[in-house]
C-alpha cells in the first residue's frame, strides 16, 4: 500500500514504532538454519544408517540381528513398531518391514528377528549373507501396531503366530523392564516346539512376572508336551482367560492365522473393530482373492509403461512395486502391505487389482492413484511415478 495512504490510518505511527523496535530486538532466524530438520530427525528420521553389531541364532530358521546406529543415535519407538530395511539383493534395491523385537528402553540398538521364508528374497539374504559389521539402511520406526492408552485396556490379549511374535516380544520386554502397570496374555501358536522363537525367555518372564501370562499353543507336539495343543481356538482362549471383559486384543502372524483366528474371536463376541491387527506384507496368492478376474492367470504377461518412456513386462501375479524394483525403478515404500500410502503412484491407463478394503484416499481413487505394493496388473499399464 502506498505510503501516503498508510499514513492516513489511525494508529499508523504506533505500528511503525513497533516495527522499528521488533527489527532491533527480533530473532535472527538465520541462526536457526537446519534446526527444523534436526528436531524432526530426533523423532522421525527418514533414513537410519545401521551396522550389524551382533547376530543371535534363535531357532533353526530364525536369527536376531542387533542393529546399532552408525551415528550413535537411534530415535525412540513404541513397542510394536517396525522399521523398513532397504537392501540390495542380486542388484535389485528393495525393502521389507521388520518389527523391532528389543525393548524401547534399550536405546543402544534395535533388534530385528528374521525368520526364513521359502524362496524369500530378503529373509534369505539377511539370514545367509549378512555378517557382523555389515552396514544396512532403514526407515525410522513406523506403524500403529502398539499399545495406545486411550484406545486400549491395561490388560491385553495377544495372539501370535510364527515371526509374528516379534512386536509382542518388544511389548513384553518393555513391560517387564519398566515395570509398567499392564498385563499381557500371550497366545503363541506354532507347529512344533523347536520352531518357537523366544520360548525360553517368554517362559522365564512368565514365571517371574505375574503380569505376563504366556500360553504356547503347539499344533503337533510330541507326547511329552503338557501345554495347550492344536490351534488358538475360541475354546483355548475362553478356558485360559475366563472373562473377556476389560481386555484389548492384538493379533500378529502369517496370513493364514488371521483367517483362522479372527472367526474364533468372532465366536467369543469380540468386536473385530476393536482388535488391533498387524499387517503381514502383500497378500499371498492374490489370484485366489475374491474379486480377482477369473480370466486372468497369475503368469499372464503385461507391459508397464512408466512416465511415458521406459517400459517393461511383468506378471499379473506380481505386485507392481516389486516389478518396478526388479526393473531398477525405486518407489519409496514402507509397509508393503497397502496401508501406509508411501508407495502411492498414478495409474494413467489400464486396470490393476487392488484388494478390497485397501485404505486408498477417496480422491486418490477418483484420480487413479494406487498403492503399488498391493496392486497387480490386469492389463497393459501406463503409470506416472
Amino acid at each position, binding site marked *: 500500500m502506498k505510503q501516503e495512504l498508510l499514513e492516513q490510518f489511525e494508529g499508523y505511527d504506533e505500528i511503525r514504532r513497533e516495527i522499528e523496535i521488533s527489527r532491533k530486538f527480533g530473532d535472527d532466524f538465520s541462526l536457526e538454519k537446519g534446526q527444523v530438520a534436526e528436531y524432526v530427525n530426533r523423532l522421525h528420521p527418514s533414513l537410519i544408517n545401521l551396522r550389524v553389531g551382533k547376530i543371535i541364532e534363535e531357532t533353526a530358521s530364525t536369527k536376531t540381528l542387533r542393529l546399532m546406529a552408525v551415528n550413535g543415535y537411534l530415535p525412540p519407538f513404541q513397542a510394536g513398531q517396525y522399521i523398513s530395511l532397504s537392501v540390495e539383493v542380486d542388484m535389485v534395491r528393495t525393502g521389507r518391514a521388520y518389527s523391532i523385537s528389543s525393548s524401547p528402553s534399550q536405546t543402544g540398538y534395535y533388534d530385528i528377528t528374521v525368520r526364513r521364508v521359502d524362496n524369500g528374497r530378503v529373509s534369505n539374504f539377511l539370514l545367509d549373507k549378512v555378517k557382523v559389521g555389515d552396514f544396512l539402511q532403514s526407515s525410522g520406526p513406523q506403524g500403529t501396531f502398539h499399545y495406545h492408552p486411550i484406545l486400549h485396556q491395561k490388560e491385553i490379549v495377544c495372539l501370535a503366530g510364527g515371526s509374528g511374535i516379534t512386536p509382542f516380544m518388544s511389548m513384553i520386554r518393555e513391560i517387564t523392564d519398566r515395570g509398567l502397570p499392564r498385563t499381557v496374555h500371550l497366545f503363541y501358536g506354532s507347529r512344533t516346539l523347536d520352531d518357537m522363537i523366544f520360548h525360553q525367555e517368554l517362559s522365564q518372564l512368565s514365571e517371574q512376572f505375574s503380569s505376563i501370562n504366556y500360553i504356547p499353543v503347539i499344533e503337533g507336539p510330541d507326547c511329552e508336551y503338557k501345554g495347550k495343543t492344536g490351534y488358538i481356538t475360541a475354546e483355548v482362549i475362553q478356558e485360559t482367560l475366563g472373562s473377556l471383559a476389560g481386555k484389548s486384543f492384538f493379533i500378529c502372524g502369517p496370513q493364514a492365522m488371521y483367517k483362522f483366528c479372527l472367526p474364533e474371536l468372532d465366536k467369543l463376541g469380540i468386536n473385530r473393530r476393536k482388535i488391533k491387527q498387524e499387517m503381514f506384507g502383500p497378500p499371498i496368492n492374490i489370484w485366489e482373492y475374491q474379486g480377482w478376474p477369473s480370466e486372468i492367470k497369475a503368469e499372464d504377461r503385461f507391459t508397464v509403461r512408466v512416465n511415458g518412456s521406459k517400459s517393461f513386462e511383468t506378471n499379473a501375479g506380481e505386485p507392481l512395486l516389486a516389478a518396478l524394483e526388479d526393473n531398477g525403478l525405486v518407489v*519409496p515404500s514402507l509397509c508393503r502391505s497397502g496401508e501406509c500410502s508411501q508407495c502411492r503412484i498414478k495409474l494413467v491407463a489400464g486396470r490393476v487389482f487392488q484388494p478390497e478394503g485397501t485404505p486408498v484416499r477417496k*480422491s486418490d481413487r477418483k484420480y487413479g492413484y494406487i498403492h503399488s505394493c498391493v496392486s497387480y496388473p490386469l492389463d497393459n499399464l501406463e503409470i506416472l511415478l
Partner: protein
Amino acid sequence: MTDYDVIVIGAGNAGLTSAAYLTQKGVKVLVLERHNVPGGSATSFCRGRFEFEVSLHQICGIGTEKAPGPLRNLFERIGVLDKLEFLEMNDLYNFLYLPEKRSITLPPDIGEIAALLQGLFPKEKEAIKAYLELVTKVAYGVISVQYLQDPDASKDKYPEYFKYALKNTQEVLDRFFKDPILKSVLGAYWGYLGVPPDRLGFSDLALMFRAYCDFKPQHFKGGSQALSNAIADAILENGGSIRYNCGAEKIIMKNGAVQGVMTQTGDEITSRFVISNSSKISTYYELMDPEDVPEPIKAELRQTTVAMSSFVLYLGFNAEPRDVGFIESTNFMVGSIDNEMAYKRMKALDINENDFAAISCYDLIDPQFSPPATCQAMALALKYADPWLKVPPAQYADTKYQCAESFLNVLDNFFPNIRNHIEEIEIATPLTFMRYLGTPGGTFYGFDNFIKDSEMFLPNDSKVPGLYNAGCWVGMPGYQPTLESGVRTAKSIVKELNA
C-alpha cells in the same frame, strides 16, 4: 534454454494454484514436493476405516452459484470447478462457553446474527446493530482499498476503515459492548487467525467475519485432499509436471538472479523463475546462501515471529454424530474470556479449560464423509511449538498421550459420551506438523498474524530477480488466502514473461 519456465517449490495450496494457473497459460512448469501427496496442510490420511481430514474446518470465499465468491471464479479459471463438489454449512459456528456451559450458534447471515444476538443481549441492541455495520464497512474497506486498489481511496472516502483497520479487535469490541460473553462470541473467529483479540488487527477479523457470512462456510466432498488432488490433476492435464518425494535443497543463483533449483538428490534443474511455497524462513535461510539474501529481507524477517501450531486429535467414532453429542459441525470451546490467559495457554504443553479449542464434525456437513454409522471429528487447540521442542525424544510418546488425555477431559464437559465411541484416534502435536509441513515451529499459519506484519506493512516482494513467494508466509493464513496467493503470484510471472 532452461529445463522449465517456472519451478514451484512445494505443492501446498499456493504452490498448486500457481502451477495450475501457469500451465493453463501454456507456461512450462515443474512442481517439486517433498511429500508423496499434494496439498501440504490440505490433505488427509487413512486409519482403519476412516479417512481423516487433516486441516479444513471451513473454507471461505466460494459463495453460491447465484452469488459466486472469488474462489469459485478462481477454481473456474484454473480448470477445477467441474472437479469439485462444494458442501455448504448451515451455521457460522457454535460458540460453547465453558464456565457457564452456554451455547450460542451463529447463523451465516449478518441480519440473522443481529436478530439472534439482539434477542439474547437486549440491553446491547443498538450496539450490536452499530458494530455489525462497522464490520461491514471495514470489510468493504479492505476489499476496495487493499485488494481492488481503489485509485481514489482516502480517509474521507472510507472513514470507518481508516479509523478502525489498525485497531486491535479487543479495543473495538470494548468500545461497543459491555457483556464479556457477547464480545467473546463476536470475536471467536480469532482462532482462525491465531492471535487473541487484543493482538489481532480489527480489519482481519472484520473481513473474515463478513466474508464467511457472505460466502458461507463450506467444505469439499472428499475433504481437502479432493481439492489438492483436483488441482494436481489439472496441472498434469495442462502438461505440467509434478515430482513427489522430491524436496528442493537449494535455489541456484547466478549474478544475483535465479537460475534454477537443486533437488535433495542433487539434480540441478534450470528455470528463470522459482515460486517458493516453502516457508519464507527456509526459502531465504535454508535454500539460499547467506550472501544472496537481500538486506531488506533480513530486516523484514527480524521483525516477524513464527505463528503457533496446534495440538490436534483426529477422532473416528463407531457411532452417529448425535450419539457422540454433536449437533453443530463447527464448535468453538471458549474457556476464558481473558486474552492474556488464552495467549498463555497457547504456550503451554497440556490442554485445560482455559484453552481456545475447536471441534468439527464433518459428517454433519456430509453424512457420507465417514462410513455408515460412524463419524469423525477433529479437535484442535492452538499451541506454539516451544514446549514441545523441549520434550526429550524418549518422553515424546508419553507426553503426547498425557496431553491427549487432558484434551479429552476438556471435551468431556460438552460431549460426555465422546470416549465411549472412539474407534480410531491419531494425535498430532506441533512436532507432527513440523514433520509433515517442514515449517519452523510446525506452523501452518506463517508468521504471527500481528498488524505490523500484515501485507500492508510487508508487501510480498522477494527482492530477488526470478524468485517469487506464495502462501501463508507472505499473506494471510488459511485456505482462501493461500489459494489466492498462488494465483496472484502466477499472474505477476505471466506479466513478467510477456514483458
